[in-house]
């Protein structure tokens, strides 16, 4: 019987039993819509995924599968829109609970997604094929190559230009970190698609070193007001009211998932021998950053399976590197370029946890406020991207202390004038205070056209040699 590569693909990404024949046709259609050829699916199945993801683990397969299910759903957005479903997009980083609340309130009447993050995650992590989107944005969409624009923003524009996604009823766009993210939505509206309806929420980066953002009541109130105001505008745009109950439920859902994911992160980060590469837990944290229109059921099940496997491996003393091998933290493990992690592993070093996902004591504190907007605002201001650099350094010192890595690699955000701009300073300050060596690797989190394996191999090898010698 002729080998069906689409079926093989579904098998290696955790689809099981009757689910495979049921999903096969949908997956073929979805992959075609995403611009993936049969050869791309073969490459992913036989080379890219086995090389970069530990598919011997059922939990890992299921995590990848949960993302693929959501990708299939994303390709139906045009159809949803034709059928009157309201389309709400967002961009990262955002306060996710708002989107979860919109979905909670609207159910099947609303579709929520951060399409760019999803597309880049799926296309590069599993197929190494986001470049056609980037090139479309550059050659036909007016976004220049040379200015180091963000791959997510290019992908959002290109996905619209290619017709992969429809224009939304509203994109609730955020400028909590970078300027380019929200301005890209203004760009799409001005340059390509006047129907691209934008609601923007921002807060200036104006707190000083020594100030605690989430304890500044005036700041929390302003952000809460911004959230409430934008939420009302989004409600008007889609004709769906977000109830306080939905918001509370969303906060609970996010909290439950964050806790579950945090457990996994912590187990992996502190395991010796290292039980799992850092890509997988970071990928599994995707629902902390982007809403899943299909819900969190598949991902939660996958994390449960993986957590159980990880626990068993720790008990048996099994790992992917020898006991005592150096472990390295990163600002944010670049899972859309999974080969980076693989390259560290090949050099005997585990890149095993993301500082930005690890939670500090401040982030684990219960909310001070009962009002859901105030509580949400406070929570955001406790997150690394929501605070001034001085406070982020304090939190990072705590996280490095808790995870005890042999080194930390900063970088990977060369395109981001906010999240990437300060990392050299953070590295210097945290190294000074903790004694843990920090390295800086200029690289792109989402794409690798300028930082190929060939270009970075020597640098990573040297870095690993130094880390091993110091250990």
């Amino acid at each position, binding site marked *: 019987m002729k080998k069906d590569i689409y079926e093989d693909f579904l098998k290696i990404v955790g689809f099981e039993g009757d689910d495979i024949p049921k999903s096969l046709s949908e997956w073929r259609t979805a992959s075609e819509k995403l611009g993936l050829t049969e050869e791309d699916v073969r490459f992913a199945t036989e080379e890219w995924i086995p090389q970069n993801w530990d598919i011997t683990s059922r939990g890992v397969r299921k995590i990848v599968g949960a993302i693929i299910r959501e990708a299939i759903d994303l390709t139906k957005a045009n159809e949803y829109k034709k059928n009157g479903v309201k389309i709400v997009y967002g961009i990262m980083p955002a306060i996710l609970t708002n989107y979860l609340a919109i979905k909670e309130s609207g159910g099947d009447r609303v579709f929520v997604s951060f399409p760019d993050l999803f597309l880049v995650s799926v296309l590069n992590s599993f197929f190494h094929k986001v470049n056609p989107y980037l090139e479309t944005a550059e050659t036909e969409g*007016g976004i220049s190559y040379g*200015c180091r624009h963000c791959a997510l923003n290019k992908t959002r524009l290109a996905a619209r230009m290619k017709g992969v996604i429809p224009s939304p009823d509203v994109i609730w766009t955020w400028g909590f970190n970078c300027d*380019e993210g929200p301005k890209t939505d203004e*760009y799409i509206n001005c340059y390509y698609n006047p129907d691209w309806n934008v609601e923007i929420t921002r807060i200036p980066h104006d707190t000083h070193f020594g100030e605690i953002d989430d304890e500044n009541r005036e700041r929390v109130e*302003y952000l809460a007001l911004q959230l409430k105001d934008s939420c009302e505008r989004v409600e008007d745009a889609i004709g769906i009211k977000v109830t306080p109950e939905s918001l509370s439920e969303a906060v609970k859902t996010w909290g439950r998932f964050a806790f579950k994911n945090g457990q996994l992160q912590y187990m992996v980060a502190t395991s010796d021998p290292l039980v799992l590469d850092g890509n997988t837990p970071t990928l599994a944290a995707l629902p902390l950053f982007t809403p899943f229109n299909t819900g969190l059921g598949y991902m939660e099940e996958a994390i449960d399976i993986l957590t159980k496997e990880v626990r068993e491996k720790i008990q048996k003393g099994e790992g992917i590197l020898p006991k005592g091998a150096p472990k390295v933290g990163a600002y944010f493990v670049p899972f859309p370029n999974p080969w980076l992690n693989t390259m560290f592993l090949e050099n005997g070093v585990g890149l095993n946890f993301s500082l930005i996902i690890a939670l500090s004591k401040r982030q684990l504190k219960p909310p001070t406020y009962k009002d859901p907007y105030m509580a949400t605002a406070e929570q955001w201001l406790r997150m690394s991207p929501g605070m001034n650099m001085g406070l982020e350094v304090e939190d990072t010192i705590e996280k490095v202390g808790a995870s005890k890595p042999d080194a930390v690699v900063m970088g990977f955000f060369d395109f981001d004038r906010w999240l990437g*701009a300060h990392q050299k300073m953070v590295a210097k300050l945290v190294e000074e205070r903790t004694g843990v060596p920090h390295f800086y690797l*200029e690289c792109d989190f989402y794409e690798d056209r300028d930082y190929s394996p060939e270009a970075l191999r020597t640098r990573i090898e040297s870095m690993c040699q130094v880390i091993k010698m110091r250990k």
Partner: protein
Amino acid sequence: MSKVMSELAEMARNRPIELKELKGKGGKVVEYTGSFIPEQLIYAAGAEPYLMFRGGEPEPPDTVLEYMLRFMNPHARSQVGFWNLGLDPVTPFADLVVAQQTDCHVGRIAELMEYLKWPVYKVGVPSDWEKPHTREYYYKALGKLKTKLEELTGNKITDEELKKSVVSINKINQALRKMSELRKADSPAIGGSDFILLNHYSFFCEPEVTASKLEELYEELKEKGGVFPKDAPRILLAGRIVAFGDYVVPKLIEDSGAVIVTEMLDEGVRHYRRQDVETEGDLIRNIGEAYYLKRIPPCIFQPAWKHRFERMQELIKEYKVDGVVWYQLSFDEIYDMECSCIIKWMDELKMPFLKLESSYEYSREATGPLTTRIESFVESIKERKGVI
């Protein structure tokens, strides 16, 4: 150069020395960045303001790479870069550096300043400007700045003092406005290079003196009449900033036979057209409204680009513009995106458009091709106008 311009240039040049002397006598020196920090407040507190906006040299931006991503615009990096090189005459003795918090470039540079233990004070400027509560945020931020300045100087900012400085700055705006009107003539009496220089000097010199010198210059120019050929291509220069010291591009444009008749720059020039501050009522609020709303929304505001293009069209009409030069700093990502929109819209207007990008690299090797591009653009406009 006219005598008045030379005098203003001399005063601007001597300003750091003057500040050092004032500091020695117990005065307070307050540096500030951008176009959202009202110097009126600093004067009213009895302190001496000094706008940080040097640029145009390649070495300073590179010195901050030890701390900072290299894909930040060179102007933002220069603000620390000159200090790193020991070429910043004021920061080492400044009592306060007030940094506007508008975009990521200036935001992270302000954090670098904090890292270097400069006495930084931040003023938040929300970019989602169409919502009433975001304006209130900025007005409140100005109120907090007032308190900070009062604490620094020990002087209460009275309405009387504030009104005095508001009136002085209004006079500067008025003089610049009148001078700008002269640029509408077929043969303008002053070009863009000099007009930008006047703006720069006006940030450094004592306001009453500046206003009076600008009035004097206006009368002189009015008397003298046009100095550019009547058929010289008329250019609108747009972008983020022509920084203090970054004069190569405006000069090349005018040396190529064109005249810059108007500008649409977010920083480094006064927003003299509409930014007069009302002198009655709540002065802080009046200042806030003038700085936040009575201006062309800067690129970082959202939404801005359609408004900005509308304003650009008005300028094109008012100043009979023949071509637009977009002067962008390298890696200034949102200006780069705006430029793509403007190229598209200018194309629809059939308006000649030239995009230039600068990393402040003005070596002989870099200036040669830049000159050729500008000359070709000017020639093409001349051809279009039937001048050649």
